[in-house]
């Protein structure tokens, strides 16, 4: 991200330091720029424009956590929507503070609803588990794959399905895509509809554990208990709720002792979770 446009000269700045700071930023000497702006800030404490420039220097130097309060000080003085919100939101994203990133990015979108802003807003929502909003942001950024996943994560399967449908031919070798699509179909149209996609997903990536869980559930639901057991067994350590279908699968195949053992384990572990 380039910030030349944001480097605002302040009347209060010392005449010799401001051009030095701007030159340091232009030349990529961000640590030098930081030092210059800190000096200026001593001369004009709390000057919001100097704090902005310091924030941009810190951001450019990768010091995102330090940049955020400086950018925030500027935005407190100049709160109208503008590009500084995008920088602030991006800084939060870099720090993986997704929930904190959404508010400044929402303001950035008011300033400019560009694909970049929408994508970053989608990332913020997704990281904050606001999946439905993430999906809408990704759609605005024309990113149907990310939107499909976010709708799926939001359990908005009816919205996810047409996106997966439209992307199926270009993602036929993408194991995660096939898992999500298969899981969506199993939920919306019944287990049998999802099984081919889930099986294909695991042919490509046998270690994709969530897909094994989904396939195990689906196989059991259509009466293929014996085939479901290895999948459910493999996925149960990561998802204890699978222990119950696994117990049912054992029961259905006459393995009653294992069924009882796994059901007892299920009760204990799920009770502890809730």
């Amino acid at each position, binding site marked *: 991200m380039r910030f030349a446009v944001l480097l605002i000269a302040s009347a209060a700045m010392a005449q010799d330091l401001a051009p030095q700071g701007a030159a340091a930023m232009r030349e990529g000497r961000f640590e030098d720029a930081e030092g210059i702006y800190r000096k200026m800030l001593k001369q004009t404490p709390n000057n919001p424009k100097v704090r902005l420039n310091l924030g941009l220097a810190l951001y450019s130097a990768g010091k995102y956590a330090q940049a955020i309060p400086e950018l925030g000080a500027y935005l407190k003085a100049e709160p109208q929507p503008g590009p500084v919100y995008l920088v602030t939101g991006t800084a939060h994203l870099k720090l993986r503070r997704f929930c904190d990133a959404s508010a400044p990015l929402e303001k950035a979108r008011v300033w400019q609803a560009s694909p970049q802003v929408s994508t970053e807003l989608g990332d913020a929502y997704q990281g904050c588990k606001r999946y*439905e*909003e993430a999906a809408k942001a990704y759609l605005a950024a024309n990113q149907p794959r990310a939107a499909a996943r976010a709708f799926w994560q939001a*359990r908005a399967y009816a919205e996810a399905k047409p996106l997966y449908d439209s992307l199926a031919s270009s993602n036929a070798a993408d194991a995660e895509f096939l898992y999500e699509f298969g899981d969506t179909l199993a939920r*919306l149209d019944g287990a049998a509809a999802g099984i081919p996609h889930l099986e294909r997903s695991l042919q490509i990536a046998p270690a994709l554990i969530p897909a094994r869980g989904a396939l195990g559930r689906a196989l059991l639901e259509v009466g293929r208990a014996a085939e479901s057991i290895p999948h459910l067994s493999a996925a149960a350590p990561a998802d204890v709720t699978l*222990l119950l*279908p696994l117990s*049912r699968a054992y029961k259905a195949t006459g393995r009653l002792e294992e069924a009882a053992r796994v059901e007892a384990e299920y009760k204990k572990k799920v*009770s502890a979770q809730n």
Partner: protein
Amino acid sequence: MLLCLALAAWTVHPLPFTLRNGETSRKPLPATMPGGIAVFDYDGDGLLDLFFPNAGNGISTLLRNKGGMNFQDVTQSSGIRVTGSAFAATAADFDADGRVDLLVSGQKQVQLFRNEINSFKDVTASSGIDNKGRWSVGAAWFDLENDGDLDLFLLNYLKWDPATEKVCLVNGKPDFCHPRYYQPEANALFRNNGNGTFTDISSASGIGAHRGKGMGVAPADFDGDGFIDLFVANDRVFNFFFRNRGDGTFAEEAFERGVAVPQDGKPPSAMGADAQDYNNDGLPDLIYTALRDETFPLYRNRGKDFEEATAPSGLSVLTRLMAGWGIVFADLDNDGWKDIAAARSDALSATGGKSAAAKEPPSWFRNQGGGKFGRGDGWNAATPAMHRGLVAADLDNDGCLDAVIAALNAPARILRNPCASGAHWLKVHARGPVSRIRVGDQWRQTASTTLGYASSYVGPQHFGLGSATQVEVEVFWRDGRRKTVRTESKRAVIIDP
């Protein structure tokens, strides 16, 4: 004719009652929980009246049915004065005097109103019923020991304290917190002493030993041993199946019976529940509502246990994207198969993280026979709302079941059945303590008046007969007596023991 049937639309009749919930910007959990409906003929005029518990600053209201879908607010003259926020209404003739009484479940107490000929008297204190400050969202009157008296099960939700209520965010906005943030609560059981008083037997019966987050209770003699069992739908924790041992005690056997949790192993947000025989095999089956992606789980009773039938019945696909509260088995098209009606809504606030998407329209699912359900038609006029309680009842005595539905911060509504099919029907009013009724090859269990979410129904039992003009009716009383009569269709029959 077929075209007319397909296009017959139900009409919407708003009622002079609005359900309040006391919602604030902090979204306290109790604000999502109102409220149920009691349908019963309180004045004995042959028309079914309506009682709505209310919360927040709303007044719990009794509406008298004046006929022609006209209802009059008679709360003032009724003697019913509900204190505090109320959630559920459970009507039944607890003192066997021939008049239907009313129990109202609330956040801090329950209140029992005895029907004293067109007016009610609060007899809570003298009855000895005390829920000890627990939060009740439902109740069930049922005969625990087949002694002829109706005993009382109080369904308690969870431990909630306004002093420790936290603010939870959904999509960045305050909304109702997930139930995992609250401790579970025990239910309560009171034995009817037969003299207007009750004894708390929660501990002695074993009921009080199990703590859950009860949202629905469905009583029925599920195992056919002559004693009424209790299914309790719990919110995000394992459901309970209390098997009645017949000696005043219960054994919790939800896992043994296969109803503790759906087959996928994920404890759902189980809400309202109902027990009736949907496949006409003589055994009461089970259904309950849950939230989006949890389906409305359906269980087929096999006698000794249950088999989940959500997927094979088609309900898994039909209800996957729905969230529901009230639910009932009811033959809405009079074809001889009990359909399913559901009051839908998310549990989150319409002004919270899901905003207007939290509202959903009500739905019904047509029983196609053979264990299959399809989408029911004709409810398009019912707009989305935060629906809660739902009861199916013939409110205009035209031989077809209507649906009365409560919704948060909106007028309650009746969906009036167009009754366009011309199919035959029968209403059976069997007097005395009846356990179940058979009409042709259909069964209705009458173990309790409780149904769905926080709701109840006391009135004639309705049977759709399809094209049959004559049927055999068999009534089973709790003391073992039974009586068989033949009758013609399209009438109400009264059967005494």
